[in-house]
C-alpha cells in the first residue's frame, strides 16, 4: 500500500526566515507529485507538479520554489517567508487519474 508522509506537521516561523517542507511517498514508483496551498477557510491552490525526478513545473509560484531530488521526495521551500505564506500545505501523488493527499503541514508566519 502507498503511504504519503509530510514533515513537519506544523511550523511557526518569522517573516523573512527560510522554510523547507518535505513530502515522501512510499510504495509507488515514479508517481506524479503535487504541492498545494490552502488559506484558512479557502480552497486549494495548486503550486507545483513534478512528473519525474529533477523536473518541476510551476503553476502558481507565490514566491516559493520546489524540487524533486529523489523519485519519492518532493520539497517546497523559500529563502524568505512572507505573512501571506501562512496556511495549510498539502502534498499529493497521482498516477493516471485521481490524486491522493498527504496529511498536510500547517504554517503560521508571524
Amino acid at each position, binding site marked *: 500500500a502507498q503511504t504519503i508522509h509530510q514533515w513537519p506537521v506544523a511550523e511557526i516561523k518569522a517573516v523573512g526566515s527560510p522554510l523547507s517542507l518535505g513530502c515522501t511517498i512510499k510504495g509507488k514508483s515514479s508517481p506524479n507529485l503535487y504541492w498545494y496551498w490552502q488559506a484558512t477557510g479557502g*480552497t*486549494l491552490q*495548486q503550486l507545483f507538479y513534478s512528473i519525474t525526478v529533477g523536473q518541476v513545473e510551476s503553476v502558481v509560484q507565490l514566491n516559493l520554489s520546489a524540487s524533486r531530488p529523489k523519485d519519492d521526495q518532493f520539497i517546497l521551500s523559500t529563502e524568505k517567508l512572507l505573512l501571506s505564506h501562512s496556511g495549510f500545505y*498539502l502534498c499529493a501523488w497521482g498516477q493516471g*487519474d*485521481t*490524486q491522493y*493527499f498527504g*496529511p*498536510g503541514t500547517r504554517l503560521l508566519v508571524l
Partner: protein
Amino acid sequence: GDQVEQSPSALSLHEGTGSALRCNFTTTMRAVQWFQQNSRGSLINLFYLASGTKENGRLKSTFNSKESYSTLHIRDAQLEDSGTYFCAAEAGDSNYQLIWGSGTKLIIKP
C-alpha cells in the same frame, strides 16, 4: 474568471436527511473528482468520474461533461459526513492541473 463554480457554499442538514452539491464548469472538463476535507484537514477521495454516475454507500456522484456540471448527492446524512466538500476538475488542455471549486461546508446536526 472562475472555471469551477461550486454551490452551495454552506449547508446544514439534520441526521437522516439528504441533499445535493453541485459544480458548474465554464470550460470543457475531462474529468471531475470529489473530496471530503475533515476537521483535521485531511482530504479523502470520494469519487473520480470521466463520465456518468458512480455510487458508494450513501453517496452518489454524476458528471455530465456535455452540460458542464457535476453533482454529489448525500442521503441519510450521518454526523461523520460533516466537513468541507470540494470538487476538482481536469481541464481539457492539461493532464497535471486540477481546478478546484470553492468548497461546500457541510454541517450535520443531530
